[in-house]
């Protein structure tokens, strides 16, 4: 399958969305970036919602960048449901969040997060983090067989 590798960004803060997109652009990562504005939307996108509309029919992204504090369904719950579903059980999920509270780290990894990245306040550092993130998950990492 030669489809273009896509990214799903789950982020409710439009500023963070804009800055993240800018950071990808600055790093010349031209892959399609899909944005879900809350946890429910993310689950809809990946597993198909209760409405059943276009859920599950679209190909899965190469990586999900998941914020933790989200409206409707919070990030860790999104992760739990993804890991509970055979279709998304192996889907790479990177937690990208503001907090580095120990409880978030522990629960994130316990639920099967592949990575945990804390968004730096300094935009330059953030850009650098996004660069490494893109390089790793879109280039270096071999995706699990679908």
């Amino acid at each position, binding site marked *: 399958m030669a489809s273009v590798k896509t990214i799903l960004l789950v982020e409710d*803060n439009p*500023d*963070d969305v804009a*800055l993240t997109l*800018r950071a990808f652009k600055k790093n010349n990562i031209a892959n399609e970036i899909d944005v879900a504005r809350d946890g429910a939307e993310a689950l809809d996108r990946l597993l198909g919602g209760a409405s059943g509309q276009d859920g599950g029919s679209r190909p899965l992204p190469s990586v999900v960048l998941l914020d*933790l*504090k989200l409206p409707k369904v919070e990030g860790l719950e999104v992760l739990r449901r993804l890991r509970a579903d055979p279709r998304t059980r192996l889907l790479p999920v990177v937690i990208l*969040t*503001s*907090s*580095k*509270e*120990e*409880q978030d780290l522990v629960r994130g990894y316990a639920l099967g997060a592949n990575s945990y990245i804390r*968004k*730096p*306040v*300094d*935009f*330059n550092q*953030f850009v650098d983090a996004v660069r490494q993130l893109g390089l790793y998950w879109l280039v270096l990492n071999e995706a699990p067989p679908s």
Partner: protein
Amino acid sequence: MPDAATRTRAPDFRTLFESAPGLYLVLTPDLTIVAASEAYLRATMTKREAILGRGLFDVFPDNPDDPDASGSRNLRASLGAVLRTWMPDAMAVQKYDIRRPESDGGGFEERFWSPLNSPVLDAAGELAYIIHRVEDVTEFVRLKQLGGEQQKLTDELRARAERMESEVYLRAQEVAEVNRRLQSANAEMGRLYEEARRSEERFRLLVQEVKDYAILMLDRDGIVVSWNEGAERIKGYRSEEIVGRHFSRFYSEEDIARGKPADALEIAAEEGRYEDDGWRVRKDGSRFWANVVVTALRDEKGELRGFGKVTRDFTERKHAEEALAERGAQLEAANRELEAFAYSVSHDLRAPLRSIDGFSQVLQEDFGGQLGPEAEDAIRRIRAAAARMGQLIDDLLNLSRITRTQLKKQPVDLSAMARSVASALMSNPSERVVELQIEDGAVVDGDPQLLRIVLENLIGNAFKFTSTRPTARIAFGRSQRNGGMSYWVRDNGVGFDMAYANRLFGAFQRLHASVEFPGTGIGLATVQRIIHKHGGSVWAEGALDRGSTFGFSL
């Protein structure tokens, strides 16, 4: 004849002694005769040359024909006493039979003598001689015996009467003695009895008057047999209202239905002791929280006699405990709230900062050319402020995390930790010259993660505040302070004015401008919080421009 002068100077003691009118014999301590007066020789019908140098008892043996002869034995005893005690010893009148010279027909002549043996001590104070002086009372005794023959009968009668009298007297004495002993034994018995009675009385009074404890005795079936003031105070019954009743009335109906009173006695009888905390009922029906100890009472044979029951009213303590538990729950809730707050701060407060910083940069990057140098400067300041705010939030979160986390204590080698912290700081590329001195062997009991934060802050500060010195000198060590071991970090940096020492450990307190030495003012507050969490204390000493020492005890 010597002249008068010679006589005065040296009297002839020998002649004087030998001519003395008394009967004298001089003996050495081994009872050899060494001198005798003429009078003695005459009285004993002996010649001086025949007795000198001979043993006393050689010369004067007992009369072998007289079975009652006891003279020699008595004399020997008396001489023995003198030899032992070096004191004169007067002997009773003795009958000695004196051997008659063969020229006078031989045999023994009966003599009564009253002898006195006196010791003679030499210049060194040693016993040198014994003078045996004798008074011949033979004539006197004979005269007495002659006169005595006629009175013999009456004397004998009188003697018998006297003997009987003395016998009676002796018996009476014995009886009196036995009586005396009996009396004293009686008195002793009385005293012991009284003592026992008093001690029992004291004990009874003690139990009786104890007011803080209900002390009561139960018989084997649980019937109350004794009652003290404490019991009256705690349970409300007067002694006459409760003695003779079953103790189960102190229990609630539910407890009685569950058989709790019977269980208490059964367990106490089996195990010797039963203890329980629970609600009990007073006479007026009100409840009190009781601590109850029931003890089985057994006699010497191990037979169960009853039970001692001690009850304390812990109602107030119970209320206090409940209040404490409630307070604990409130605290826990507050802690949870704090945690939620910190969590939210961690997530929500940082996001706007990212926007501020990020979009400032966007401005700079996308419109840099259209902005003047003043706008560029403003953007730089905005970004610096955002960065600083981010740092503050992180430090505050760390501080609150310390409050929220549990201590995990274990032995920690502070010396090794200080070395590792310092070498991490040294590895930062810089032109600086830092002399490091770390005392070995400072091992304490504490939380290694938290103590590392302490050392990172203290040693980090030392590095920071010596940055203006050509050679920074930083030392870690320990010493006795206020009766305990203190651990400290000392530097030769800019120091501080002791007038502000008490502000050093407060959050956000800074004694230097940020431009001079960067920092959020939370480091020492964090140090203090960690040390307090360990039950220790922090201190600081310094002088402006003369370095500082920050220390702590655990």
